[in-house]
C-alpha cells in the first residue's frame, strides 16, 4: 500500500481509531493484522517469505540466548545465513549469475545456472536488515530474546516502517509494543502534521521534479548537457523529498499511535563534508552498517590502510544493498572513495583544509553538494553507460544549450521555489508548532489544500520501495 494513496488514508483512519478503541492485546493483534494487510496489498504471496524469516529469527533469538559458547555463534550464523540467503536469492542471484555468465562467455564456457524469473519482494532489504539487527543484538546481549511471537512478528512487520524503514533496532522498538499508550492530543497533532509535510514533500516536490528527471534520464543521448545538469540537480532533491517524505509519513503515523521511531534525515544537503552527509542521510542504514559491519571489521582501531579499505568495503556493500546493479555499486564506491580522499587530505595535506569561517564552510557545503549530486547520476541512470554519458554531457554543458523539459518556465520556476522553501525550512530548523489547536487546524488544512492543488499524482511509487 502506498502512503500517497486514498487506500492508505482509509487504512490509517481505521487502524488508528481501532487502535485507540482496543485494549493492549487487541492492539498488537490489530497492528499485526493491519501490517500483514498493508504488505499483502503489494504482492500477497511474498508475505510467506517474511513469515519464514520471522519464524527462523524468533527461534534463533531464543536459542541464542539460551546457548553458550560456540553454539551461540553457530545459531547466529544460521540466522544470518537464512536472512542473507533470501536476499541473495531474490535480489542478487540473477545479478551475480549474469555477471558470471559474461565472464564465462569470455572463455567460451556456458554457465549452466538458470536465470530465475522472480520479482523482488517489496522492501526486502529493509525488513531483512531489521530482522538481522535483532538476532545480532540478542547475540551481543543488548536485547533479551522476545518470547511473545506476536510482538516479535510486529517488530519486523510494523507497517509504518515495513517497506522502506527506518531500519529500527530492537532496543528502541520492542518495549514500545508492550506499553499501553495513552491517547495524547499534542502527540497526535504533531504526528499528523509530520505526515502532512511528508506528503507535501512527496507529491508536491518530489513527484513534480520527477517529471523533469524521468524525461531527461529516459533517453539521455537525445538531451543537452544543460538539460541533464538541471535534471540531475532536480533528482538530488527528488530523491531526498521522496525518501524523507516517506520517512516522515512513517514516523508521523507511528507517533499518532504513541510510537517513536528513529529519525532518518537531518538536513543532509547542509553537510560540509561527505562524512557529515552520511551522519545526516538515511541515518538508520548508515548506523546499521557502522554497528554491524564497519565496527566488526575493526572500525577505527586498525591500521590506516585497513581503515580506508574497510570504509571502502562498507560503502561498496551499502551500494549493493540498494540494488543488484553495477550503478549502485559504483555509487556506493564513489562515496567510499570521497571519504578516503577527504581523510587522506586531512592527514597528509592539512593546508588544503579550508578554514572554519563562513567562506570555508560555504565552499565545503557547495563542494559536498556537488559531489553528492554527481554520485546520484549513477544511482538514477539505467546503466553505467548512460551514467557515463550523462556525466560527460554535464561536464561539457553550455549555458547556450537548450533546456528541454516537460514543464513550462512557470512550473520550472515554481519547482525552484519549492526547493528554496524546503532549504529555507531546513536552514532555519523551522518546526511547525502545533500547540495551538487553531494554528494546527489552519496549517494542516493549508498543507492539505496545497497537496491537493499542487500535488502530482501520476508517478506514485516511492523510489526506495524497490530496495
Amino acid at each position, binding site marked *: 500500500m502506498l502512503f500517497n494513496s*486514498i*487506500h492508505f488514508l*482509509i487504512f490509517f*483512519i481505521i487502524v488508528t*481509531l481501532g487502535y485507540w478503541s482496543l485494549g493492549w492485546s487487541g492492539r498488537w493483534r490489530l497492528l499485526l493484522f493491519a501490517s500483514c494487510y498493508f504488505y499483502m496489498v503489494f504482492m500477497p504471496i511474498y508475505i510467506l517469505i517474511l513469515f519464514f524469516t520471522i519464524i527462523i529469527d524468533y527461534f534463533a533469538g531464543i536459542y541464542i540466548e539460551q546457548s553458550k559458547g560456540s553454539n551461540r555463534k553457530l545459531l547466529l550464523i544460521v540466522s544470518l545465513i537464512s536472512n542473507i540467503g533470501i536476499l541473495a536469492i531474490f535480489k542478487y542471484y540473477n545479478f551475480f549469475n549474469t555477471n558470471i555468465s559474461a565472464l564465462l562467455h569470455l572463455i567460451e564456457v556456458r554457465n549452466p545456472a538458470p536465470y530465475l524469473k522472480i520479482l523482488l519482494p517489496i522492501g526486502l532489504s529493509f525488513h531483512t536488515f531489521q530482522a538481522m539487527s535483532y538476532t545480532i543484538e540478542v547475540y551481543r546481549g543488548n536485547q533479551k530474546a522476545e518470547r511473545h511471537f506476536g510482538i516479535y512478528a510486529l517488530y519486523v512487520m510494523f507497517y509504518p516502517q515495513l517497506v522502506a524503514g527506518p531500519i529500527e533496532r530492537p532496543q528502541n522498538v520492542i518495549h514500545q509494543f508492550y506499553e499501553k499508550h495513552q491517547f495524547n492530543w499534542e502527540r497526535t497533532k504533531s504526528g499528523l502534521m509530520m505526515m502532512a509535510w511528508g506528503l507535501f514533500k512527496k507529491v508536491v516536490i518530489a513527484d513534480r521534479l520527477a517529471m523533469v528527471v524521468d524525461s531527461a534520464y529516459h533517453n539521455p543521448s537525445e538531451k543537452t548537457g544543460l538539460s541533464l545538469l538541471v535534471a540531475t540537480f532536480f533528482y538530488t532533491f527528488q530523491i531526498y523529498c521522496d525518501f524523507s517524505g516517506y520517512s516522515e509519513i512513517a514516523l508521523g503515523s507511528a507517533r499518532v499511535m504513541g510510537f517513536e521511531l528513529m529519525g532518518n534525515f537531518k538536513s543532509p544537503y547542509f553537510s560540509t563534508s561527505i562524512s557529515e552527509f552520511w551522519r545526516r542521510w538515511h541515518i538508520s542504514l548508515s548506523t546499521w552498517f557502522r554497528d554491524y559491519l564497519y565496527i566488526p571489521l575493526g572500525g577505527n582501531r586498525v591500521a590506516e590502510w585497513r581503515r580506508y579499505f574497510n570504509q571502502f568495503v562498507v560503502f561498496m556493500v551499502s551500494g549493493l544493498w540498494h540494488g543488484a546493479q553495477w550503478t549502485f555499486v559504483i555509487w556506493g564506491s564513489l562515496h567510499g572513495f570521497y571519504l578516503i580522499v577527504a581523510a587522506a587530505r586531512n592527514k597528509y595535506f592539512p593546508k588544503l583544509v579550508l578554514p572554519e569561517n563562513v567562506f570555508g564552510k560555504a565552499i565545503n557545503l557547495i563542494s559536498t553538494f556537488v559531489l553528492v549530486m554527481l554520485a546520484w547520476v549513477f544511482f538514477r541512470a539505467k546503466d553505467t553507460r548512460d551514467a557515463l554519458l550523462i556525466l560527460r554531457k554535464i561536464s561539457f554543458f553550455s549555458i547556450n544549450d537548450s533546456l528541454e523539459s*516537460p514543464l*513550462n518556465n512557470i*512550473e520550472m520556476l515554481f519547482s525552484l521555489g519549492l526547493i528554496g522553501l524546503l532549504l529555507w525550512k531546513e536552514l532555519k530548523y523551522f518546526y511547525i508548532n502545533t500547540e495551538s489547536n487553531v494554528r494546527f487546524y489552519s496549517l494542516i488544512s493549508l498543507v492539505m489544500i496545497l497537496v*491537493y492543488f499542487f500535488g502530482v499524482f501520476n508517478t506514485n511509487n516511492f523510489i526506495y520501495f524497490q530496495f
Partner: protein
Amino acid sequence: MGLSNSNALRSKSEIRHPKSDIPSVMLKSALKYTVLLVAIFLWLQAYFPAIYSNTKLFPDDYRFGDLYRLSYLPQFKERTIACHEEGKSLANDTSQVNLYIIGDSFAEEARVNKTDFNTSKYLYTHWANDAYIQLDSTKRNILILESVERAAKEHLSEDVDNFSIAKPIKNTENPNLSFRKKIVHGWEEISPVLFPPGTEERLEHTLFNYDFFLWFRELKAKMNLILFDRIEPKVILSKDKKHLYYMEEADSTHGRSAFFPVTDAQIDTFVTHANRSREKYLKAGFDEVYLSIIPNKVSVQSPDLGKYNHLIERIQNHSALEVPVIDTYTIFKKNPEKYYLKSDTHWNCAGRNIWLDIINQQIIVENNLKK
C-alpha cells in the same frame, strides 16, 4: 465498607471525567466510532467489487464521458446520453439472421444491444472473453469482428479464437501436477478474490466523484492548464485545444497510437490473421464474417497531430484482404466533427447509428434475402 468502595469508585470516575466533561467525552467517543464505522464501510465497499457495483449510492464515474473522467477539464464536460429510444426494438424473431459480435467498448451493452439489430438472435462477446456457441443452421449466422483502431493491431496479431463452436472441453485438473504447482495454481485462483485489484480506483470514485468534488477537480485541472500548460498525462489536447484525445491513441510514442509507425509487413500479418480467422469461422458454420475497425477519434479529427499511420485504410484496401469490411472510416472522415462525443473516446449517437445502419440495412437485409 461498601459505601466507602462506591465513594472511592465515584471519586475515581470524577477524577477521570468531571461532570462538565462527560458530554464532551461522550461526543468525542461517538465521533470516533462514527468515523471508524464510515471508514470501515468505505473500505469494505471499495475492497469488494461486488459490494461496490451493487451499492447504488455513488454516481456513475462515466456520466460526463471517459475523457472528462481522465482530465476533469470543464470545457470537455458533457453529460453522456443513452442512444436507445425507449420502447423501440428492432429485434425480430422471424428474422433469418443470427448476429454474433466479438467486439470492444464500442459495441458493449451500454451502447449497443439486442434491440438495435433486426435479428432473431444476438450475442456479444468482448475480446477479453471466450464463449461457447451453438449455431442454428436454419438461420444465416453472421459474425462481426469489431475493434477500435487503437486495439486492432493486438486483435489482428493472431487468429481470432474467442468463439468455440465445438463442445467445450472441461478443464479437468491434471492429477499429476506437482504439489508446488498445485499450491501456485490454487494461490493464483484465490489471490484476486482475497486481494481484488482496483481498490484505490474504487475508493477515489466513491469519495470524489460527486458533483461537489468535481468542482475542485476542475479547478485544479484548469489551474494546471492555465498556469503550467499541463493536463493529465492520460489525455492529449489537439493543436487548437478544442478536442481532447486519449493518450494511447494520440501519443506517437505509444504502440497503440495512430501515429506509431506500422510497417507493410505488419499490415500483411494483420490481413493474414483476419483472413485465417474468417476461413476458420466459415468452416465452423458461420455464413459471413465481417471486419469492422472503428477509427480512433484522433485519426478522424486531428490526423495532423503526428504522422498518421493510416492503419485502417491500409488494411481495408489491402489487395489480399478477403474479409468484407464495415467501413465507417470513409464516412466519418467526410464530417469529422459529427460522429464523436466531445468528452469521450467513443462515438456519439450519430456515429453509432451510421454503423448500425450499415449492419441493419445492408448486411442483415442482404442475408435475409439470401436465406
